[in-house]
């Protein structure tokens, strides 16, 4: 093999029963593409290489040695590509005394040069997605740049490789879990009793990110390339106040992600985030680092952008009264009662523009309650959460008063 992640050496030898010319790698196979690396979450990489070999007629035994690169020998899969009807993989053999070697027994109807697709799982390669998001407060846009970073810690260098990163929930099954005839061996170093089947994967709804054109990937190197760039996607800011989450008003950047709008309906893979804000004078202010969760097409991108320093809120419980005490008929013990609570939120906006605000209030102690009075319409979000949507005037104050009556409260 002119190249292998694991420096697999393709040796050939004749079977004793079929003493024919040995299979050798074709001396000139310039058209063989570079290896393809599909990097999955959880330290798993599928390596796929195309190698051209010359096979004599009859059976041939080819030895693949995995010298470096942390490969999973048991996952090897060899498929003839050019003459699938005339060239067959008869068996894969492994020996306890040569744990890094696999013997591929091939049978060819006639002497032929055949391209073999050799695929196997390897470890030590990893990928990660990084996002740089810059919010322009004046233009109300968001620049989003996605970079895919590939790290080669496998110990093997690639002169060139086609890399793609796979994201999603990928289920893998240990070969030991599907051995028949004996219990799975708890010692992974112990010799297997039966040849393990190739690693099988259930790839459900995963997405891939291509790394672009072939890349030289030496061992011990991390390379990052831009893989997605959205400039000036329209962004809105929603101001939120939830005393249970943060004592101050927070800002959330929202960018649409549907076809023809915002990000255009893309899938964003989970990754790290560097969020900054561009000011009117062109300078940038670092806001935070964090993470972007998986974002499917159609779902709005939401990024928390810190507190709104030019807004302030004061929240007070202004009034509380207990009424409707219910006593048991037999023991006259207190069974339940009602509580009326009056709250006042004074929200001050020192900015020169009116701002939309979503206030979330949690009603504790009971799930049976009603809003008996409110200066801003209340929406019941769930059984114990109220939501108020209002606009805080520019340079002004919004007073939100509401009164909630809780019934059937247990003492």
């Amino acid at each position, binding site marked *: 093999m002119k190249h292998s992640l694991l420096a697999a050496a393709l040796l050939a030898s004749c079977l004793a029963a079929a003493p024919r010319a040995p299979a050798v790698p074709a001396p000139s196979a310039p058209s063989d593409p570079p290896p393809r690396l599909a990097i999955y979450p959880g330290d798993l990489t599928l390596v796929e290489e195309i190698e051209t070999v010359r096979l004599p007629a009859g059976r041939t035994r080819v030895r693949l040695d995995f010298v470096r690169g942390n490969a999973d020998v048991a996952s090897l899969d060899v498929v003839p590509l050019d003459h699938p009807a005339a060239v067959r993989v008869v068996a894969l053999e492994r020996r306890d005394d040569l744990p890094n070697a696999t013997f591929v027994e091939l049978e060819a109807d006639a002497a032929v040069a055949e391209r073999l697709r050799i695929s196997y799982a390897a470890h030590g390669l990893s990928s990660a997605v*990084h996002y*740089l998001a810059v919010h322009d407060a004046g233009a109300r846009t968001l620049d989003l740049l996605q*970079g895919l970073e590939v790290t080669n810690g496998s110990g093997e260098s690639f002169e060139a490789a086609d890399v793609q990163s796979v994201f999603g929930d990928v289920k893998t099954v240990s070969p030991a879990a599907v051995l028949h005839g004996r219990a799975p061996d708890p010692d992974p170093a112990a010799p297997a009793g039966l040849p393990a089947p190739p690693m099988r994967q259930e790839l459900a709804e995963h997405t891939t990110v291509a790394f672009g054109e072939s*890349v030289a990937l*030496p061992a*011990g*190197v*991390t*390379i*990052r*390339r*831009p893989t997605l760039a959205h400039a000036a996607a329209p962004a809105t800011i929603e101001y939120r106040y939830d005393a249970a989450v943060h004592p101050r008003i927070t800002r959330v950047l929202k960018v649409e992600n549907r076809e023809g709008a915002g990000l255009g309906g893309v899938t964003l893979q989970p990754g*790290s985030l*560097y969020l*900054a804000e561009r000011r009117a004078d062109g*300078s*940038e*202010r*670092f*806001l*935070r*680092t964090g993470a972007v969760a998986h974002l499917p097409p159609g779902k709005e991108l939401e990024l928390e952008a810190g507190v709104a*320093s*030019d807004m*302030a809120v004061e929240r*007070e*419980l*202004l*009034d*509380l*009264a*207990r*009424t409707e*005490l219910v*006593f*048991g008929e*037999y*023991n*006259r*013990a*207190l069974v339940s*009662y009602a509580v009326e*609570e*009056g709250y006042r939120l004074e929200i*001050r906006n*020192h900015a020169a523009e009116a701002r939309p605000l979503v206030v979330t209030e949690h009603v504790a102690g009971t799930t049976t309650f009603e809003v008996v009075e409110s200066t801003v319409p209340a929406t019941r979000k769930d059984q114990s959460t109220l939501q108020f949507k209002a606009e805080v005037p520019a*340079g002004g104050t919004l007073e939100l008063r509401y009164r909630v009556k809780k019934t059937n409260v247990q*003492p």
Partner: protein
Amino acid sequence: MTAILAPFALLAALARPAAPDEGFVELTVPAKPDATTLLLTSDAPASVVETRAVSLVRGTNRLRFDWSRERVDEGSVRFDVQPAAGTAEIAARTKIHRLGGMLYFDVEASEDTAATLATRYLLYGVGWRVDYVGLLPSEGAPDALALRLDVEVTNNAGKDLEDARVRFEGGEIDHLSLRPGERRQVEVFRLEGVPVIRRYLWDPARFGGTPAIQLEIENAPGGPIARELLPAGKIRIFAARAEGGPALLGEDVFPATPLGEKAKLATGNARDLVVERIVLQVGNENERRDRWNKVVAYDQRAKVRFKVRNGFSHDTTLTLFETPGAPLEIVSCSAPYERKKADAIEIQAALPAGQETIVEIEWLRKNLF
């Protein structure tokens, strides 16, 4: 080379012709940036922007970004290239792990051109704090004070800051040079005639049994301060004395105060105001009992008297905080009061100079259990 002398350096070397087998030109740019800007915030490492003038050649230019002793957040390092002509894009960044603190950036330029290279990164170890100093003209004229803001920048980042522009919440320093291990304090502003409101508060839960002195300063639009944000810091309040230098009235933490908000400072206690709280009555009524005669619900009526002596030579007002708890109904109060919370009241007691004032309050708490 420069990586040792100036630990944080973009490796400098002139552009050399592209080797056929490499396919790129390793470019060297001046180790010393043309301009450096630091943005300091209260909750994040320093955000650094450096700009340099470079010359790009057509094709791939490989720029090397070195750091060894600087506490750079590697994940935050990025380049922005603004070419004078044509286009230039960052195609890839490469980290060679055995080389430690170093990154390569590959810049694809459409033509030979001069360019401005902006390097942005987060730098740990640059600390800052602010100190306010308030000077009242005299203890008898507390309507306005002179307010001064100093900022001290500390460099423990392992990087030489030379003629850097430092911006922080509430101000900026145009030219700051600071070597590693140094700190420098500079004045940001000094304002005269900042209105201040003085109050006396009696709130045992917050200030103990002696009335506290509270000063209120407003960062009002159009006012003498009128700053987008006053950062949090320590403030020392002095008052001028006729007999000599100013006297320290007290210190407090000046809260972060955006434009339009007020900062309330508690600088000490007013011992000449003496408050005596006397519980005149606490009793249960309207008791409801269960089958075994155990009280399961009741109302509670209480009456409290405050005896307040004003030892000042001038009239003043003291705010008394009383927190009976909720539910709460005020039955009567001999002084003006305000309910700002469900479980507490604030009583404004007017105190004539040198006299004792009596304030009585009665409340009822219904349906306790």
